[in-house]
Every structure is written in C-alpha cells, then in structure tokens.
C-alpha cells in the first residue's frame, strides 16, 4: 500500500445475508456492475465502480453474504479468498466495508469482528438505523466507533442516507485498526468475540428494558391462541369463500347483461347464418362463459394478497404446523399449498422454501389437489344448479367450502401415505419460521398482484379460450345436415360423433356424451369446460328477450337425456364436481412439476394417478349414490 494515491484502489463489501449489503452496493455503484463467476464455485462476486467525493474512481467488490469466516460453505470460502487476496484476478482490497443490520447487531457484529481480526482497514456501515430505532433500540455510533477503533457510519442504504458520509471515509489515511483486543486472550476466539460483543452492545446498542410488548405481540396473543386463534383462522377462511360468492354476484350480473346485450346487437346486425352462429354461440358464448368469473377470481387473489401483506400468512403457517404434521408435512408446506388454491404453478414453485427434499417432493405431488382458481368457473357453473333459486348464498359458500375441504383432505391423506413410503430424510430438518410484525397493507403491491393475475386470466380468455371456442364451434357445427332439429344437427357433427364414442366411458359416472366431450376438451384448460358446455348445449334463440338472455345455467337445468330424464341431476352434478376436484387437467402444471421435481416420471405419474383417481372417485360417487336411491 503505497501512499501516492489519494484514494484506495479497491474496497470490498462484507456482511451477513439480509444486511442490505447489495442495496448499498447498488447505491454506491449505480448500474455499473457486472457479475463474475469464479471457477469451481457457483457463488458470484459482483464488482462495480464508485467515486469518492473528490471524484476519484474506486472499484467495489460485493462479496457473497455469509455468517462467518469459518470456510464452512462455498460462499464463506469466496469471502475469505477475497479478503486475503487469493481470489484469482483480484488484488487484496485496500479497505473493507462491513455492512451490519443495526437492529440485529448481536448477530451481525460476529462477522465484523472476524473481519477486523484479518487486520485490514475497516469501516462499519451501520445499516437500517431506521428499523432499529423503530424497535426501540438505543444506538450510539460514536461509542461504537470508540470501542471498535474504526469509523462507524449510521446509514439507511435503501433511502440513500449516509452514502456521502461513507464515501468520505474512502481516502487516505485509511482507518487502520491496529489490534483486535478481544483476540489476544486465552479464551476460545468464538467465546471471546461473543463476550466482547455483549459488552459492546450493552454500551452502544441498548435494547429497551426487558422485552417490549409490541402491538404484534398483543395481536398474536389472540390470533395464535390455541382456541381463539383457530376460531379466527376458520372465520377468515369462511369469510373469504362467502364474500367470493356474495360480493362477486353484482359485477357478474353486469358482465352477463353486457354479454346478452352484445348478443342481441349482433343478431340485429347480422342476418341468420353461419357467421352469426359463430359469433354469438361460439365466440360470445364460449369466451363469455369464462370471462363472467373474472370478479370471483379477482376477489380470491385480493384476499390472498391481503393475508400475505398483513403478515397473517406466517401465523397461519404456524397454526397449521400441527395439522400439517398429521399429513407428514410441516407448517412450511402451508404457504405452497395455500397458494395452490390460486394456482398450482406458483404453489409448486413456492415449495423451494421447504428444506427437507422428501417433504418438498410430497408437497409438489399433492399441490394440484388444492382446488385452483381455474376450477372455479366450473364450480360456479355447477353449484347453483344443485340448489334452488331461493336458497341463500351461504349455502353455495358452504358447498364450495366442502369442495375445497374434500380436495384438501384427500391431498393430506395422500401426502401422509406417500411420506410414509418415502421414508425419513438423511438429514433431519425442523420447523423454523420467522413471524414478521403485522404491517399496514401495502395496497400498491396487492393491487399490482391482483391486476397481474386478472390480466393473465383475461388474456387467456382472449387468446386460447377464444381459439378453442372457435374450434369447438366448428366441431359441433360441421359436417352439416339440413334435416332435423338442433339436437339432430349436433348429433351429426364431429363433436356429436366424438360424444357418441365417449358416452360409454362416461355414462357410469352419470354423464352423457356431450358432457364427456366437454370434459375431454377441458384437458387443454379447465375453464374450457364452460365454453364447451355453452356451445354444446346452445338452444335456438327465440324472440323473447328474456329467453335470449337466459344464462347457461338455465339451459343446463332444462337439458334431458333422450328418454326425458333430466341430465343434470344432483347426483350427476356431484359426480362432475368430484371429477373436477381430482383431475389434473393443466399441462403447464405438469411441466412445472417436472422441472421442480427434476423428474418427468414424477410429473407423469402424478398426471396418471390424479386423472385415474378422479375417474374412480366420480364412478364411486355416482354408483353408490344410485344404489342408495338418489
């Protein structure tokens, strides 16, 4: 280290994971960063450039986050190599900036002391002072600086505060720390460090006397109560399902009305013929039959967003740990499984937080049985048919709740059996979860999240469902025959013929050929069932305005077998619901499972198992129901 230059040539940032080290790195370097992988390890060291207040250029190295310099993991080895100048192509840093989270000094200072023992010039960046002060911690940076013998810069890297002060230290004479007094005693270095930190924190980072009862603690006292906690949990879940039914019916009415009006307008503009039929029955019926469920999907994602953002999700995972244990899983599996109620794909990806590999595999396997939002349109179509018009929304909510419960329960039983088969992990892992403080809802985040999902749903309706609706319309129209009524024409069409072939397969489940065809098409995407049904069960439009506007449901209620029995009996509808609860009709899910489980066999087995199970369960429901006289 010669004394010619005014500023150090290179500085290194060291710190625990989550100390805000990378935020600081980005604040210092702007966008001037590149990622370099060093041979042999997959851990990356980022480097960039920054300028001192006097305009001198300094290279900044962002070392991987680590907890200590014990060289236990590849990350730690890279950090040690970088500090000792062993990293290929990089000189020894002239100055080390130790980044610590000031609300967690007891933990983070351990690494800082180890860095000081290396004998390099060092600056302590006391990051996240705002968080520390909010938690009642009394920080004394001056005292800390005196005790450690190095500059201590309080800062808030995410807000850009303290960056200038930190840059002021990047010049000669470098703050050199001559000795590490704690390291010269007879004690074990780890013990010596800890007792030094203890003294230091008692002086310069006093926590409020005893542990404060925070608001979160007081809320938790109720929400994590062994009895009231569960009451609250169940009330929340039921309220979510209930409001999905009751609140969503208003905008759903608007969508249905708009659809009806658009249909009438099209009929008035285009004379009767194939194009009119394609537009009104095929496209409008098919796309509208799916789009009408947008409000309910928006609400479901809104509630999931609120639960995540408020911090309640972690409490739910804590409460559910005991229940999950009965399924051979842990509370960690709760979030992936709960997300699967929205969509199995993010759910399967969220299993990455599960440490135990076998638990993770089992969670992935059963995740598609948590009824996802793509099944909702089918449920919403069928459930009201089970009930009379006069019966309240709470009954519908109860049925929906039962559907979710059935899927979930089966998933748990399967998980338990599977977990028993797979055996224990080589390395035991235990439940460990941080409970974040309750926060005000971040509406911006929630709305963006809801909008993304809603947009994905709408764009799917506008692309794939639109295309499938057109093709389904064609299949149910061609080849044409001029004889007979609408039903005869349909029987003559390609779809009618497919239905005739399928009918023997699905009849034991209580379905006719048309329903069988609709189920077959829904293997492309579950919602397509609604489009198919809308197209397959279209009835001749009449002049009666009310009749034209009748929803799909009313038409289904009138559908009959050839011998006059109603087609949609309560039993056949329950059988249909059961089929949709269990069948894995989502190719993207299978693709993601194959990637996450790293095995096409696992994904393929899951598909075959679930679809076979769906068929058998549906068969059992219908046949046993018939024997019982329903």
């Amino acid at each position, binding site marked *: 280290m010669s004394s010619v230059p005014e500023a150090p040539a290179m500085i290194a940032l060291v710190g625990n994971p989550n100390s805000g080290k990378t935020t600081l790195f980005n604040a210092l370097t702007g966008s001037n960063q590149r990622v370099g992988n060093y041979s042999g390890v997959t851990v990356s060291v980022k480097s960039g450039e920054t300028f001192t207040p006097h305009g001198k250029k300094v290279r900044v190295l962002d070392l991987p986050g680590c907890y200590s310099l014990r060289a236990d993991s590849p990350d730690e080895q890279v950090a040690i190599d970088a500090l000792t100048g062993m990293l290929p192509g990089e000189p020894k840093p002239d100055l080390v900036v130790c980044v610590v989270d000031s609300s967690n000094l007891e933990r983070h200072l351990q690494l800082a002391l180890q860095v000081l023992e290396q004998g390099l010039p060092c600056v302590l960046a006391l990051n996240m002072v705002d968080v520390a002060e909010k938690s009642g911690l009394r920080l004394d940076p001056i005292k800390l600086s005196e005790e450690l013998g190095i500059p201590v810069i309080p800062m808030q890297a995410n807000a850009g505060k303290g960056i200038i002060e930190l840059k002021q230290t990047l010049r000669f004479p470098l703050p050199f720390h001559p000795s590490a007094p704690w390291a010269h005693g007879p004690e074990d270095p780890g013990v010596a460090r800890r007792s030094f930190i203890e003294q230091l924190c008692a002086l310069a980072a006093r926590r409020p006397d005893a542990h404060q009862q925070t608001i979160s603690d007081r809320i938790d006292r109720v929400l994590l109560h062994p009895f009231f906690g569960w009451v609250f949990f169940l009330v929340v879940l039921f309220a979510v399902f209930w409001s999905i039914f009751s609140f969503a019916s208003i905008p759903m009415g608007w969508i249905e009305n708009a659809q009806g009006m658009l249909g009438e307008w099209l009929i008035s503009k*285009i*004379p009767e*013929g*194939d*194009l*009119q*039929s*394609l537009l009104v029955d095929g496209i409008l019926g098919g796309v509208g039959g799916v789009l009408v469920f947008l409000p309910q*999907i928006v609400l479901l994602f809104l509630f999931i967003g609120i639960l995540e953002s408020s911090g309640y999700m972690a409490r739910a995972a804590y409460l559910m740990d005991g229940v999950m244990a009965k399924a051979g899983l842990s509370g960690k599996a709760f979030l992936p499984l709960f997300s699967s109620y*929205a*969509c*199995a*794909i*993010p759910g399967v*990806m969220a299993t990455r937080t599960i440490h135990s590999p076998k638990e993770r595999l089992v969670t992935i396997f059963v995740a598609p049985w948590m009824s*996802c*939002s*793509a099944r909702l349109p089918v449920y919403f179509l069928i459930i009201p048919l089970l009930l009379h018009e006069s019966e309240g929304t709470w009954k519908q909510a109860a049925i929906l709740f039962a559907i979710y419960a059935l899927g979930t329960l089966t998933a748990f039983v399967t998980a338990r059996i599977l977990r028993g088969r797979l055996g224990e992990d080589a390395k035991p892992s235990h439940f460990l979860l941080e409970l974040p403080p309750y926060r005000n809802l971040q509406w911006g985040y929630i709305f963006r*999240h809801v909008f*993304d*999902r809603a*947009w*994905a*749903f709408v*764009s*799917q309706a506008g692309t*794939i469902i639109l*295309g499938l609706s*057109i*093709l389904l*319309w*064609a299949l149910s129209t061609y080849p044409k025959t001029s004889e007979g009524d609408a039903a005869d024409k349909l029987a003559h069409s390609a779809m009618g013929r497919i239905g005739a072939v399928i009918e023997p397969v699905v009849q034991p489940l209580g379905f006719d050929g048309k329903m069988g065809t609709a189920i077959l098409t829904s293997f492309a*995407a579950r919602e397509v069932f609604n489009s198919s049904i809308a197209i397959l069960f279209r009835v001749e439009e009449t002049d009666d305005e009310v009749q034209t506007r009748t929803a799909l449901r009313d038409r289904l209620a009138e559908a009959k077998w050839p011998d006059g029995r109603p087609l949609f009996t309560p039993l056949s509808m329950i059988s249909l619901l059961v089929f949709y609860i269990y069948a894995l009709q*989502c*190719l*993207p*899910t299978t*693709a*993601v499972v*194959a*990637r996450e489980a790293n095995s096409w066999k696992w994904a393929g087995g899951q598909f075959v198992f679930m679809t076979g199970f769906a068929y058998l369960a549906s068969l059992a429901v219908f046949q046993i129901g018939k024997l019982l006289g329903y």
Partner: protein
Amino acid sequence: MDIQWQTWAAVGIVVITAIIFVIRISKSKKTGGCGHDCGCGKKK
C-alpha cells in the same frame, strides 16, 4: 347469396384459428416452465 357469404367467412375464421393453434403447439414445445395458462401471472 347472403348465407353463402356467411358460410365462407365462418370457415375462414375457423381455418385461420386452426393454423394459429398448429403453429403455437409446434413452437411451444421448446419453452417449458411457467406457462401463463393457469392465471399464474408474470414470470418471477
């Protein structure tokens, strides 16, 4: 005449849709992972 015109238009739309589907299916084999088909939103 009118009916004839409608028939051709409908058949045209169906054929175009079928072609788009065939192209999409043959293309999509390469890209695995998170399809946007389940309402899962943007890639993370």
